[in-house]
């Protein structure tokens, strides 16, 4: 099911989100009432303290450690409420910064939800072809020779079968490969061989010899496939992931801009 266009606008998401936040706070009041002098440590709180410790240290706290952690929590809570009572949350750069960071995080995860349109992704795909083109794949047989002259001779004589037994075994490379991606050819045969292979036409004939960093290769290039830029439908998810990653900062900025636009800022100079 596709949502109508208006429902996919970040602005709409923000308005709905704002309404939920407003409703929540209107219903519950401010989360910590500075006037209250009752601190309730329920099981949820103890569970949170305990699992926080476990995640960090890899084991559950002992009873003594848990008591100390709870005492620390209580101390923090008492001081926090007293600080609120004194209005220390106002005009404090650290508190201000931390709250802004939290809001930024929320805005950031909001930006994560934004769904790109097909047009967005089409142009992303077109702008970054190297990231999405299928790796070229090669199918070929090859016979290895230490010396070029022996390779030339063998190719001329047409007696390559016997060389499979003698020359080719002097190197640990596969004699026949099917659909090997270019990346693997780079890794196993090296850059020089890969460049030479790019120049050959596929067919039934033995060709070459072509050099690698290891020696000489007589090659029968059976097939070359891939290398095309796929249709968006085939790689949609990958393109969307890449788009998401590549535009995260930009979209966070856009999300901020929506909030920012609702403010009028006057700066006296």
């Amino acid at each position, binding site marked *: 099911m596709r949502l109508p266009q208006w429902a996919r606008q970040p602005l709409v998401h923000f308005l709905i989100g704002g309404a939920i936040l407003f409703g929540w706070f209107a219903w519950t009041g401010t*989360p910590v009432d500075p006037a209250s002098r009752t601190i309730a440590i329920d099981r949820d709180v103890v569970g949170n303290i305990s699992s926080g410790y476990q995640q960090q240290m890899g084991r559950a706290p002992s009873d003594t450690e848990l008591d100390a952690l709870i005492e620390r929590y209580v101390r923090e809570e008492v001081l926090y409420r007293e600080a609120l009572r004194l209005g220390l949350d106002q005009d404090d750069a650290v508190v201000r910064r931390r709250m802004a960071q939290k809001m930024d*995080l*929320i805005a950031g995860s909001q930006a*994560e939800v934004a769904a790109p349109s097909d047009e967005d992704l089409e142009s992303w795909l077109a702008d970054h072809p190297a990231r999405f083109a299928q790796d070229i794949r090669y199918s070929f047989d090859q016979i290895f020779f230490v010396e070029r002259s022996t390779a030339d001779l063998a190719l001329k004589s047409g007696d390559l079968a016997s060389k499979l037994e003698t020359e080719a075994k002097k190197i640990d490379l596969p004699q026949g490969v099917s659909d090997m991606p270019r990346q693997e050819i780079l890794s196993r045969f090296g850059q020089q061989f890969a460049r030479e292979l790019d120049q050959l036409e596929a067919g039934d004939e033995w060709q070459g010899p072509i050099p690698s960093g290891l020696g000489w290769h007589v090659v029968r290039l059976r097939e070359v496939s891939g290398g095309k830029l796929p249709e968006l439908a085939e790689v949609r998810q990958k393109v969307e992931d890449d788009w998401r990653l590549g535009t995260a900062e930009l979209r966070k900025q856009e999300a901020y801009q929506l909030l920012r636009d609702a403010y009028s800022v006057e700066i006296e100079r």
Partner: protein
Amino acid sequence: MAKSFVKSAWIGVAALALSACGGEDADRRSGDGERTIELAEFPDRPYWGDTHLHTDNSVDAFGFGVRLGPEAALRFARGEEVTATTGGSAQLARPLDFLVISDHSDALGATRALFDAPRLAIVAMGDETVLRWYDMMHESPEQSQLAIAELITAAGNGTAPESLSDPEQQVERTRDVWNTHLETLDRFNEPGVFTAIAGFEYSLMPGGNNLHRVVMFRDGSDRTSQTVPYPGLTTTAEGLWDYMSAYAEATGGQALAIPHNSNLSNGLMFELTMPDGSPMTAEYARKRAAAEPVVEVTQIKGDSETHSFLSPNDEYAGFGDTGWELGNLPLTQAATDDMRAGSYVRDALKRGLTLEEQIGVNPYAFGMIGSTDSHTSLATGDEDNFWGKHSGNEPANQQRALLPQNLGTRLGRFGWNYLAGGYAAAWARGNTRAEIFDAFKRREVYATTGPRMVVRMFGGFGFADSDWDNDWVRKGYESGVPMGGELADSGTAPSFMISAQKDPDGANLDRVQIVKGWVDTEGNARERIYDVVWSDMEKRTKLGGKVPAVGDTVDREKATYTNDIGAAQLRAVWSDPDYVEGQRAFYYVRVLEIPTPRWTLFDAVRFGIELSDDAKADAVAQERAYSSPIWLKPAVAKALEAQ
């Protein structure tokens, strides 16, 4: 509570929306990769990776100036072009197959947060040291690097400000950074093509003595998000192992730890005793062996294979030791000869045999890998593509080879002491998180100082030269064990099938050696180096028991070499001529390339700078590979009889 509810509700909505559009492809990438691709019958090729890379989430890397994050690091590792922090386009000639981003768990993301904070907020913290560092970070890149050097020294001395060292104070930020990071990894993880592995660096450093480990996970974010990186500055290694087994128990996942830079530990990395000096217990040894199957033997901050003091009869010992051998990490304590055995890997392997004789468990039965430890987000170990240890010595700093580079004092160590860094090669059946991790776990991995040589080793009884004519890999797996394996003594000398192929884009090979360590009848740990096979054997005959040097084709004026000497491939079946029944032993392969220019010589030519005499003498080297060992253990029946 209400506030956090609202926040989690929002994030819940976000997660829901994301999972709705995820689907099958997202599942493939976010798990451990099992059952996602077709696997080979046997490991058929080495997969290349770096398990030790820092990004701008590392407290020191950011301070040193890097502004590239995990995303750029992953793009670079899989072969894309990125712009380095100090400018210039960086790219690998050949992509890597896997990457572990290992940012320091202590103060994860903290310097970036510190840097971004308004100055007023730092003033409000009331910590003068932090404020001074803050100001230095904003003053200039040089000042920023000094600030971080001070921070590392303070961490080593246990005097780091609480706001940076207390894990309780950081847990929330750590969790934010970690979860974001795990999501990024999943997006780049592509079974069969590129593997993005979760990990972190555990930075235990008592008195500045480096006991760092890289921790890597087998799992995807479904499991790794249930934990957060374990802090190093305030804990012990045993605490780390407990954390790892608690993780495994809670999630069904797996983690392993890779010690590194033992060369900067002043003898503490591989002790014969418990950390408190009491005799090592079997339980402690067992825990360590289970948690740490592999060590990182070579990286930018030097090579830890062995030291000339420990291996006076090894003419190729001491590679990458210059500068680093002087002392611990910040050079606050000098190293002495009695510390060496606890600082280098070959002696640790020997100590492992000795300890096994005494307590029945070998705590140091590990395999070997190389990595970079680059703090630039750029995982490259190539001499002609060296992007520096950190952003302060990226190529934009043309004098980097000559400048003092030591942390803290800036004395004693120079830019040219840095190696270009190494790589980890893993023999796996396919390129997934599970397959790569399992190769590490069974130690079927090896180290190189940068070149991508293909090194294979099988141990068994009765291998023969005629095995090369047939499917020798199958034979190796079916009637022997690969590197990292163990053999039970059968009463005859073990034999080894060894094959080394040059990097197809690199230099020819000089020789293949076996390094054997064993415990003799008097209970002393011993070592011996055997030249097994070398290029042009008919011409290079042994003189006084030694194979003559291969020669040197390096043109010092142009930073070039030729492959007119050396061999493309070397193979041999080797049987131990000094085998004694019942002795514990290990055997690993060392492969040497012909001499080639180091990054310093490339710098000298490229930037037209004159190297110092010391640096010039060190500007050409024989790069190498170290296989994981194969261990020979007394047969179980015989051991029982003896009791």
